[in-house]
């Protein structure tokens, strides 16, 4: 028997989530959203439990998780930074913003800083094109950025 390592209350919380969706397999994506809300990411163990609760194969769950860019199997930083790469942001210099974040945080896109504070990701269009280029820190939107403003944003969360 293989064992899965998660704390008891988290498992219960997860099972409750599944139950709140009547353990229906059609609700998989909703369940995954909630699960990512609880754990911050979707480790293999969480996917195993969801598969079991919804009576679907783990491969199916993983197939779905790995399909959608919103889901991640890696823990994000305390302050996840997402840089919008929509067209509007692209033509207004989003690439330079990415370069600056990479330089300031000394990590590549998809990585988390050693202290676990920041992680860097790219996303497609948050629909705030009027403010391009745009960056999200957690849920907060920062717009009209220039490479110079990167340091200030990082400083705001470094305290």
């Amino acid at each position: 028997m293989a064992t899965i390592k998660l704390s008891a209350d988290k498992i219960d919380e997860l099972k409750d989530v599944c139950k709140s969706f009547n353990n229906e397999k059609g609700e998989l994506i909703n369940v995954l959203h909630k699960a990512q809300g609880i754990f911050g990411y979707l480790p293999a163990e969480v996917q195993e439990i969801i598969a079991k609760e919804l009576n679907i194969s783990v491969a199916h769950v993983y197939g779905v998780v790995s399909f959608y860019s919103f889901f991640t199997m890696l823990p994000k930083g305390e302050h996840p930074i997402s840089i919008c790469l929509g067209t509007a942001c692209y033509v207004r210099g989003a690439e330079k913003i990415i370069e600056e974040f990479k330089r300031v945080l000394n990590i590549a896109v998809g990585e988390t800083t050693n202290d676990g504070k920041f992680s860097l990701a790219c996303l497609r269009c948050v629909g705030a094109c009027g403010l391009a280029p745009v960056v999200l820190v957690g849920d907060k939107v920062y717009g009209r950025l220039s490479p110079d403003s990167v340091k200030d944003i990082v400083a705001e969360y470094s305290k």
Partner: protein
Amino acid sequence: MTQVKSLADLRRIKENLQGKMSLRENSNNPESLVQIRVAMATCGIASGAKQVMEFFIEELDKRNIQAVVTQTGCMGYCFAEPTVEITLPGQAPVVYGYVDINKADSIIEKYIKNGELVDGIIPVNYETIQK
């Protein structure tokens, strides 16, 4: 909560509401009913519309100006967020762009109190269908 059970119900509610709104507009006491709409879509909020809205609510209260401050959706002027529309009683609405706390302050002091326009008006460039 009102349940709308029929078309007649719906029309009654509407008339009521419209009555209230025109009452607002044609009030005998115009100073007390300045209307302020803050565009609170993602773009607006991201550029600080929430703080601006809170400022208006608190300051108008403090400064004893009776006004209705409401949120609304995107006015379309994304380049100039946060945007705020001010309607003084009996006058055409005026949209201000790039409204931060300072700008909001001068809007209250100059425009709302004195009818003096403030820099940064966004000319309305569209027609909206009337209902």
